[in-house]
C-alpha cells in the first residue's frame, strides 16, 4: 500500500513538472491515520487552485514522517501523536522549526465480530489484562479476561508496532508506550485488521474509529469503561460526541500536523493551513471528529503568530488530556 502511494505521489509530481514557473507542490508526509484527512484537504486544495499543483501526500507513519520532516524534505508532517524528544532534537540539529497544529480527534475503537454475543462492554483493566506483555502465551481464552465470558479461544488483532495507533493504545491501556504482548496479528494496514475481525467470531481488535465508521455492518463496537466516574460513569461507546466531550477516555486522542516554519510563509501553504481550520466538514466526511470551534480559533491564532515548538515538552502520547488544557498550558 505504502509504496503505491509514494509512487503515485512521484507520478503526480512528475506530471506537474510541465508548468515551469509554478512553485513546487506542497509536500505532506507522515501518519497513515491522518492520511485520509490530509488527502481530502489536498484534493480540495487542488480543486480550489487549478493553477497550482496539488500537494503530494505520502504515508511513512508518524515516525517515518518526522524523519523526513526533520531533514527538511517535507513541508508538512502528519502525526497521530505529538512529536517525541528524539525527533525534537533531530529537528533542532537540522535547524528545522515547526508550528504544531491540532487537526482533529480520533477515537480508538475496540471491535469484535458481529456474531460475538458476549462482549457487550469491556473495562480498561480488562484491556490491560489482555494486552500486557505478561499476557503473552497465557491469556488465550475469553473467560480468562472475564469469568462470565465463554471458555473459547480469543484471537487478537491490532495496529503494527511502527504506528502511532499502537503507541497510543499501549500507553492508554497497558500504561507503557510500546509495551504489549507479541502474539497477536499486527498489521500496518488497518484494513487487514478490519478483515481479520470481520471474518472471525472469536476475534477482538483495536482500530481507529474512522475505519469502523466505514465498516459499520462488519464490526461491532465495544463500549469501554475506564472505571472513573468524573468523566462519564460506566461503559462509553465511542462516537463523535463522546470523543469530543472527553468522556470516551482513555482511548481518544488528538491528531496533529506539523508545519515547517520556513514553508509557513509561502502563500499556498498559508492557504492550505487555513483549510485545516475552516474545512471541518472534510474531517467529518472521512470519519474523523472535528475539533471544537474554540480550539480551531486558538490554533488559528497560534499559526498566525507563528508560535514554533510543541506543547508536549515531555513528548510522546499524553493520555486523557484535553486539547483545551494543552493549548492553555502552552502559552
Amino acid at each position, binding site marked *: *500500500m*505504502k509504496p503505491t502511494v509514494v509512487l503515485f505521489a512521484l507520478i503526480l509530481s512528475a506530471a506537474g513538472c510541465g508548468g515551469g514557473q509554478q512553485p513546487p507542490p506542497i509536500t505532506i508526509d507522515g501518519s497513515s491515520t491522518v492520511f485520509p484527512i490530509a488527502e481530502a484537504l489536498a484534493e480540495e486544495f487542488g480543486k480550489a487552485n487549478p493553477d497550482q499543483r496539488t500537494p503530494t501526500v505520502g504515508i*511513512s*507513519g508518524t*515516525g*517515518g514522517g518526522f524523519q523526513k520532516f526533520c531533514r527538511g524534505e517535507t513541508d508538512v508532517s502528519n502525526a497521530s501523536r505529538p512529536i517525541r524528544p528524539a525527533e525534537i532534537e533531530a529537528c533542532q540539529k537540522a535547524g528545522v522549526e515547526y508550528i504544531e497544529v491540532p487537526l482533529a480527534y480520533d477515537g480508538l475503537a475496540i471491535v469484535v465480530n458481529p456474531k460475538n454475543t458476549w462482549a457487550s462492554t469491556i473495562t480498561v483493566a480488562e484491556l490491560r489484562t489482555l494486552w500486557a*506483555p505478561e499476557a*503473552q*502465551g497465557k491469556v488465550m481464552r475469553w473467560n480468562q479476561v472475564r469469568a462470565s465470558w465463554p471458555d473459547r*479461544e480469543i*484471537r487478537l488483532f491490532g495496529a*503494527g*508496532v*511502527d504506528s502511532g495507533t499502537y503507541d497510543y493504545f499501549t500507553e492508554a491501556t497497558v500504561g*507503557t508506550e*510500546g*509495551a*504489549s*504482548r*507479541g*502474539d*497477536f*496479528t*499486527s*498489521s*500496518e*494496514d488497518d484494513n*487487514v485488521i478490519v*478483515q*481479520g*475481525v*470481520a*471474518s*472471525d467470531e*472469536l*476475534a477482538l481488535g483495536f482500530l481507529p474509529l474512522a475505519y469502523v465508521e466505514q465498516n459499520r455492518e462488519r464490526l461491532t463496537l465495544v463500549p469501554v469503561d475506564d472505571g472513573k466516574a468524573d468523566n462519564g460513569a460506566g461503559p462509553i461507546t465511542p462516537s463523535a460526541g463522546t470523543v469530543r466531550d472527553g468522556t470516551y477516555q482513555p482511548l481518544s486522542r488528538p491528531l496533529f500536523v506539523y508545519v515547517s516554519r520556513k514553508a509557513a510563509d509561502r502563500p499556498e501553504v498559508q492557504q492550505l493551513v487555513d483549510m485545516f481550520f475552516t474545512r471541518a466538514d472534510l474531517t467529518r466526511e472521512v470519519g474523523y471528529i472535528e475539533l471544537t470551534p474554540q480550539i480551531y480559533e486558538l490554533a488559528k491564532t497560534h499559526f498566525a503568530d507563528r508560535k514554533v515548538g510543541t506543547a508536549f515538552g515531555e513528548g510522546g502520547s499524553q493520555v486523557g488530556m484535553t486539547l483545551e488544557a494543552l493549548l492553555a498550558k502552552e502559552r
Partner: protein
Amino acid sequence: MSPSTSLRASPSTRLRASPSARLRARRFEFLIEWALFLCALLSIGTTAGILVVLAVETFAFLREVPITDFLFGTEWTPLFATPRFGVLPLVMGTVLVSAIAMVVALPAGLLSAIYLSEYANPRVRRVIKPVLEILAGVPTVVYGYFALLFVTPVLQRVVPGLAGFNALGPGIVMGIMILPLVSSLSEDAMQGVPRGLREGSFALGATRMQTSLRVVLPAAFSGITAAFILAASRAIGETMIVAIAAGQQPRLTWNPLVPIETMTAYIVQVSLGDTPQGTLEYRTIFAVGMLLFLGTFGLNLVSAWLRGRYREEYA
C-alpha cells in the same frame, strides 16, 4: 569496410584488405562472445550479490543473537518491546501452509499427469495442457485475494472455528497454483519413458491402468519426485498468497484453522513498516531470508540431481 567495396577492389588490394577484415570479424566475434558471457554472468552475479548481502546482514544479526536462540527459540516477537528471536514459529507456519498445498497438488497433479500422458488422445491433450498451464500464469496477488475473500468464507461454512486468516485457505489455493507445475513436469517425465516399455506391458496383457501405475510410474519415478520437490520449493518461497490470506501472527502450531505467519509474510510485513535500516529488527529479515534461501536452494539441488539421474537411465 563494406563487402561491395572489397568486391570492386583489385586482387592486390583485396589481398591486403582481407586479413584486416578477418581481424575485424574476429574482433567482432570476440566482442559477441564477451557480451554473451556478460549476460550469463549477470544472473550468476546477481545470485552471488544476493548471497553476499544476505550473508553479511545475517552475520551481523547472529553477532547479536546466538544462533541457537534463532534456530531453536519458540517465540518470534522481534519488533516488540521484549524481543524474542526464535524463528521456529515462522518455519512451522511455512511448513504447515506448504504441506497443505502439497496435499492438494500432489494427488491432483499426479492424476492429471497420468491422464494427460497415458489416457488422453492427442487432441484433448492439446487443449487441456495449455488450459492447465494458464493456472500458473495467474498473478499470485489474485490468488491471495481469492483465498481471503472466496475460499476462506466458503470453508467457514463447513469448518467450525475457522478464523478469517488461517493456513487452510491459502494452503489449498497455493496447491491449485502449483498444480500445473506438478502435472506438467510429471507428464514430461512420463512421456520420457520409452515406448517399448509400454508396448511390452501391453503385450503381456496388462490393462492401461496396470501399465500406467506399475510400469510407467515407477520408470518415471525420479522425474516425478523432482517435480514434487520443485513444487514444494515453490510453495515454501511463495509470498503474496500467505501475506494476504494467512495472517501475520507467528504462532507455533499445527492447527490450520488459526492465523499464522510464514517466513515470507514476515519479510513483507517488516518491509512495509517503518523499521529503520541497520537496526537489529531490520536485520531479522535478512536472517529469515537466508534461512529461506538455504531451504529452497537445498530442495532445488535435490530436484536437479534427481532429474539428472532419470535422464541418464534412458539416454
